[in-house]
């Protein structure tokens, strides 16, 4: 078993394979040994950003909850050869490499990650599994382009952290970056962009079927995709390489790529295999058929019904993360408020500092800092912990100000009366001040919870499967941003409503002591006060 260094493989332009014909159904002894070392749990945990990710690995529009795509077939093929189970960890594109580096969450990332010298410093790569180039797309009516330099001063879109981005920069073009490739092509079709430069497979799946766009210009650059592995994790790299070699040698790779209409001259030459595809591009055709379907509202409803499992799970995740974050926010906020109002000066200043810093910086940055930033310092939190901490600690600052206002609005006399009755400050707070302040802060607290519920959508950035994540996955599976957006918005609304009702109910129950006099039963109405001066006309 050889592990050719990546650069050597690139130089040779080939991956030499010595294995024999089709792999047997059961893994070989060698595969077993490799798998045992690399994946002791029997699971190959692979990460990818499956949103708008055709033809790599994406939700199968016909079978929601199931994946399809050529990378999906490659990784499951490798897993089969190694006799392990492939398990997807969906991660946002920007988080793929950082997540790999912080380690533990998944074994490898396969998501059209280009092998570059720059990236090879951060992570290790398996043998390349696909060779391709960058493809320009413009609106259908645009004249032919022959070089990237012609695009200077024009609006060109691409994805961040891609080879295309680097090529454009090198050619003096200032690219606009997108998160979702489909959005870039749509913007181009609408006239918001003049051109989009992206990997050839992406262009073929997103630009080519669009009649208002056309592929334009020659191939640019050379792209090599490899599976990214945590630096130094040679057992995983070895196992993946073995799997890839077997997949190629058995001809399976050619079959997969042919089905996806990705079997090219370059690939044939590189792998030393026949130039003609192994069969018709069935999956590509299926994809095109799906795109050209007219979508009715009935279809949309059917889709939601098909996605009910995913949506239910996403809803539960959103609610759980919001409740946990709110509980944290209330606890920390309350502590901060008490410090602000009752503690010694240095503690007041500390609490004030925390509140100002947290309120003055964006929640998203805080969350990314907690998830990725702290990982750099060796504090590795899982996404849920980071998400709850990020949301909770942020909202704590706002809650603290609410509670401070609540504590201050309890009349001073209440504290004095409690102290005069022999209560310590702590007892007075606990039994007299806080219960009264609680009634005052309940309405803003509900408000904040609704707000937090919506802000929880940011956890999708650290790869938590919340409602917003479900929205992105669904919308990019069917390219139906309108219908999906409406539906997900309604779910958010519906989640919030019970909490609003609950708060109204609690407010009513607790408001006994603040009803206006006219609404109270059995009350002695007092006469208008005659002033507070001594009244000596009154008989004693």
């Amino acid at each position: 078993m050889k592990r050719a260094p990546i650069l050597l493989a690139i130089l040779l332009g080939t991956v030499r394979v010595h294995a024999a014909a089709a792999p047997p159904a059961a893994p070989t002894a060698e595969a077993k040994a490799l798998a045992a070392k690399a994946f002791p749990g029997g699971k190959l945990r692979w990460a990818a950003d499956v949103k708008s990710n055709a033809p790599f690995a994406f939700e199968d529009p016909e079978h929601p909850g199931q994946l399809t795509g050529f990378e999906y077939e490659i990784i499951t093929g490798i897993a089969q050869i190694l006799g392990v189970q492939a398990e997807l960890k969906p991660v946002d594109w920007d988080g793929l490499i950082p997540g790999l580096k912080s380690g533990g969450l998944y074994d490898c990332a396969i998501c059209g990650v280009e092998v570059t010298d720059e990236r090879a410093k951060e992570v290790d790569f398996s043998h390349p599994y696909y060779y391709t180039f960058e493809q320009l797309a413009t609106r259908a009516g645009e004249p032919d382009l022959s070089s990237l330099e012609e695009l200077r001063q024009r609006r060109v879109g691409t994805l961040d952290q891609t080879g295309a981005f680097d090529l454009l920069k090198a050619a003096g073009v200032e690219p606009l970056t997108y998160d979702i490739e489909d959005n870039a092509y749509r913007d181009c079709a609408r006239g918001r962009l003049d051109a989009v430069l992206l990997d050839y497979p992406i262009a073929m799946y997103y630009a080519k079927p669009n009649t208002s766009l056309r592929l334009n210009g020659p191939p640019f650059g050379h792209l090599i995709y490899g599976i990214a592995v945590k630096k130094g994790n040679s057992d995983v790299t070895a196992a993946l390489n073995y799997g890839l070699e077997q997949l190629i040698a058995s001809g399976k790779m050619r079959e997969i790529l042919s089905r996806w209409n990705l079997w090219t001259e370059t690939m044939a030459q590189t792998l030393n295999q026949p130039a003609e595809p192994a069969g018709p591009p069935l999956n590509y055709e299926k994809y095109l058929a799906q795109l050209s379907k007219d979508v009715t509202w009935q279809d949309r409803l059917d889709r939601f019904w098909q996605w009910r499992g995913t949506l239910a799970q996403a809803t539960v995740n959103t609610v759980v993360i919001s409740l946990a974050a709110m509980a944290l926010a209330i606890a920390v906020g309350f502590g901060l408020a008490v410090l602000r109002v009752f503690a010694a000066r240095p503690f007041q200043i500390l609490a004030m500092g925390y509140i100002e810093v947290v309120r003055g910086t964006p929640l998203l940055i805080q969350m990314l800092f907690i998830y990725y930033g702290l990982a750099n310092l060796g504090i590795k939190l899982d996404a849920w912990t980071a998400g709850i901490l990020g949301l909770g600690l942020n909202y704590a600052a706002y809650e603290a100000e609410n509670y401070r206002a609540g504590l201050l609005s309890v009349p001073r006399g209440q504290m004095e009366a409690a102290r005069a009755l022999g209560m310590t400050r702590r007892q007075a707070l606990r039994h007299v001040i806080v219960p009264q302040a609680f009634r005052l802060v309940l309405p803003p607290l509900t408000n904040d919870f609704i707000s937090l519920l919506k802000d929880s959508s940011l956890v999708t950035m650290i790869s938590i499967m919340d409602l917003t994540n479900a929205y992105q996955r669904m919308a990019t599976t069917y390219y139906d941003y309108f219908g999906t957006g409406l539906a997900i918005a309604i779910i958010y609304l519906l989640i919030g409503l019970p909490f609003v009702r609950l708060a109204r109910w609690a407010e009513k129950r607790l408001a006994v002591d603040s009803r206006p006099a006219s609404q109270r039963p059995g009350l002695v109405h007092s006469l208008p006060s005659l002033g507070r001066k001594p009244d000596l006309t009154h008989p004693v």
Partner: protein
Amino acid sequence: MISVRDLRKSHGPTPVLQGLSFAVAAGELVSVIGPSGCGKTTMLRCLNCLETPDAGSLAIAGVTLERAPGAALNADFEARAHDLRQRVGMVFQNFNLFAHKTALENVMLAQVVVQGRPPAAARETAVKFLAKVGLGDEFHERYPSQLSGGQQQRAAIARALALNPQVMLYDEPTSALDPEMIDEVLAVMRQLDAEGMTQIVVTHEMRFARDASDFVLYMEKGEIVENTPAAEIFQNPRDERTRRFLKRFL
């Protein structure tokens, strides 16, 4: 029962109490009168350490508190102040009943929290003292906002009494009340006096001061001008300042 010597207190640069000394014997009722801003409320609040004296000594119900001018507060002082408050009941001008508790709960709370009595016993005591101030069953479950001013003040007195204080302090207990409710509160205080409670009342009720108190303490500009038996002060004030003050009322 109460002995105060050279009690001093300033709010910032403004002197409020300029060396007060007086004594109250057990069972006496003392009314404190004087013009607004004369320091009578501050004096009363110093007596149970709601405000910390700057200097002077207090001996109330067996607890002694001393502070030399400029001396820092220490834990011992705080502990004694805490001790003192348990033996001294206080009633405020604005009642200050706990707004989130019913009348009964108001009277129970400190018994349970401060004295650690079981709730059932606290409830029994609360019922007893509410009855004593004339608040029967029908008032137990009412919130302060559902009670009239006079009823609130009586509940506040019951709340203080429930802790078995040896001394009761009243800070203008009837000033926030409508005229027809003043009597019901004063009647409670007279009753307590008859039972032998030691009481100090800061008041503007001159008739009450005259008829109910043993001594009347007249204050002006942070000083005690005179401390005279009630019968005497209204008939024949010793000091010219007292005479001038009382003239406006009688």
